[in-house]
């Protein structure tokens, strides 16, 4: 670069460079984003982290086997409710979402590898959204695999009626497990979006996330008050209740008990159609919309954020 240029030719050169750059980056941005997506997936899977996650997710299946051995008279639908509809959504899903989503940007910052991403021609908002998408992928796959395994552990070998491939309501078990996986996947996506946003808003994402899981999702969601309208688990429970049945035979098998209505504080006696609660479509819209809003707000915050190294953070 040895030519002497006037200001006008400088501007002309810049415009030409801009045009070239724009053409180059338009196509190559897709390549860069795909690479970032794959990189994030690889980060999730390398090392011992996925093994520990796997062990955690194998817990329900392991418990199912243990319960079938130690409590053989407990009906399979009851086991399914304890493990798939209490244990997984209240303990595992939010924790795993917190672990992965809180690290979307914070892990890169702590490891100081975010510099290598920031100096690439990738907009910061796109950086966040792609990493969030990769987080969705990892958590949904983990949820799908291990919920499926749990179903298999609960219902495998249950050939005698009424479970021969079907539950008491005549639902096909494989179809039921697919519906369950879809509902759990929607819930984990909502959690990931929420915790991803929280991780950009507060440094103490872990404490805030745990408080949210324990207090909001764990306690407030179980009260029959309006407060549960702000919880993810309430909507996923409603979707589940409207698409699946949760009737469990009482001891002796003479009568059936709606375990979900009792456990989830749904007053089906006074309101059999749950008309006072959001409908199926509204629940799906709320979950998807809230996830989208959290993702967009987080991407906006990320686009305006500075990432400091060696330099002091603002007070």
């Amino acid at each position, binding site marked *: 670069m040895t030519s002497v240029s006037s200001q006008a030719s400088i501007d002309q050169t*810049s415009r030409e460079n801009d045009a070239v750059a724009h053409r180059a980056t338009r196509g190559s941005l897709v390549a860069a984003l795909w690479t970032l997506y794959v990189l994030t997936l690889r980060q999730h899977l390398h090392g011992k982290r996925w093994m520990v996650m796997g062990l955690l997710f194998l817990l329900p299946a392991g418990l199912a086997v243990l319960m079938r051995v130690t409590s053989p008279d407990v009906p399979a639908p009851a086991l399914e409710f304890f493990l798939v509809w209490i244990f997984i959504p209240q303990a595992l899903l939010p924790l795993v979402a917190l672990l992965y989503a809180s690290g979307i940007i914070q892990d890169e910052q702590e490891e100081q590898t975010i510099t290598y991403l920031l100096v*690439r021609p990738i907009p910061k908002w796109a950086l966040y959204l792609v990493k969030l998408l990769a987080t969705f992928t990892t958590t949904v796959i983990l949820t799908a695999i291990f919920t499926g395994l749990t179903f298999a552990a609960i219902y495998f070998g249950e050939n005698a009626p009424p479970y021969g491939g079907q539950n008491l309501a005549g639902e096909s078990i494989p179809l039921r497990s697919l519906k369950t996986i879809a509902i759990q996947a929607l819930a984990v996506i909502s959690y990931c979006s929420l915790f991803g946003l929280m991780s950009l808003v507060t440094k103490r994402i872990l404490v805030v996330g745990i408080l949210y899981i324990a207090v909001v999702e764990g306690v407030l969601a179980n009260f029959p008050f309006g407060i549960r309208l702000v919880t993810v688990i309430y909507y996923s429970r409603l979707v589940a209740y409207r698409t699946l049945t949760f009737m469990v035979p009482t001891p002796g098998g003479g009568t059936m008990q709606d375990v979900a209505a009792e456990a989830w504080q749904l007053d089906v006696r006074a309101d059999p159609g749950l008309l006072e609660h959001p409908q199926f479509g509204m629940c799906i819209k709320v979950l998807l919309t809230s996830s989208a809003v959290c993702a967009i707000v987080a991407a906006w915050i990320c686009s305006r954020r500075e990432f400091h190294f060696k330099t*002091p953070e603002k007070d």
Partner: protein
Amino acid sequence: MHLEVVNQVARPVEVTPIVVFHEVSKWYGNVIGINKLTLQIRAGVTGLLGPNGAGKSTLLQMATGQLRQSQGSVRVLNRQVWNNPALNRFIGLCPEQDAFYEWMTGWDFVHTCARLSGLRRGEARDAAKRTIESVGMTKNQGRAIRGYSKGMRQRIKMAQALVHNPEVLFLDEPLTGTDPLARRDLMDIIQRLAGEGKSVVVSSHVLHEVQSLTPNIVLLNHGRLVAEGHVRDIRNLIDKHPHHIVLVCDDYRKLAGRALAWDDVEGVRVLADQSALMVETRSPDDFYGRLPALSLEDGMAIKAVYSDDDNLEAVFKYLVNK
């Protein structure tokens, strides 16, 4: 220190600055990182110097779009930097922190960085191969980075900065912790890049290394621009500190008497152990002009002449340690 003739790329004739800081300030709460700095960095190799906490990292991070200036404007290649990711296609950064995706191999890391820069698969593969070869890491490219030595890590860091063939390169302390061999190789790479027409900004506080790379420096202290330009020009402007010129001569005492007679000589110190004389003068050019005639006089053959403060270290010391 002997006066070194730095064999550098000639300073470009063009006036187009590569990086322009205009009235830039950056503060962190109550702490001012950069204080109303106006600076233009031109093509070629430029050394960015300053003591710890001077603002070098802040400046580099603003130039690469990682930090936003609180005031003023920062332009690279005549484009605004902040929130302009497309500009990163033309910028390469070798950061100071020793951070990698440790589980990746060297090749994997450079290739991934190439793909993140938008290169297509085939292009990225070729670019990674070429760049790794240029930094001398072909033999070790298949090993995980966690097993690399410090020199290897610096080379791979350099490689990721070069892989997308940027026009402007920012190197933040690229030679830290490297052994002499790796240091020599990295300096050769920097000089070769400058020879290829790239603009390189090297931030460091290791003066002799920067001096070997370039005489064009930018000196910061406490977030302010202290000096900018050629080392010798800056040195000449430092009136407060006369130049120290050492003359090695057998009859140094007689020489001292003759030197004291000149008006521009402010002081003379005898270095008996070296059979030499150190002269302090405010007009080094005039003094050098008189030396040939002086040397021809009886018994005063001057065996060696050098200046021990016509260098970066002296400039740094005089300007920073005020």
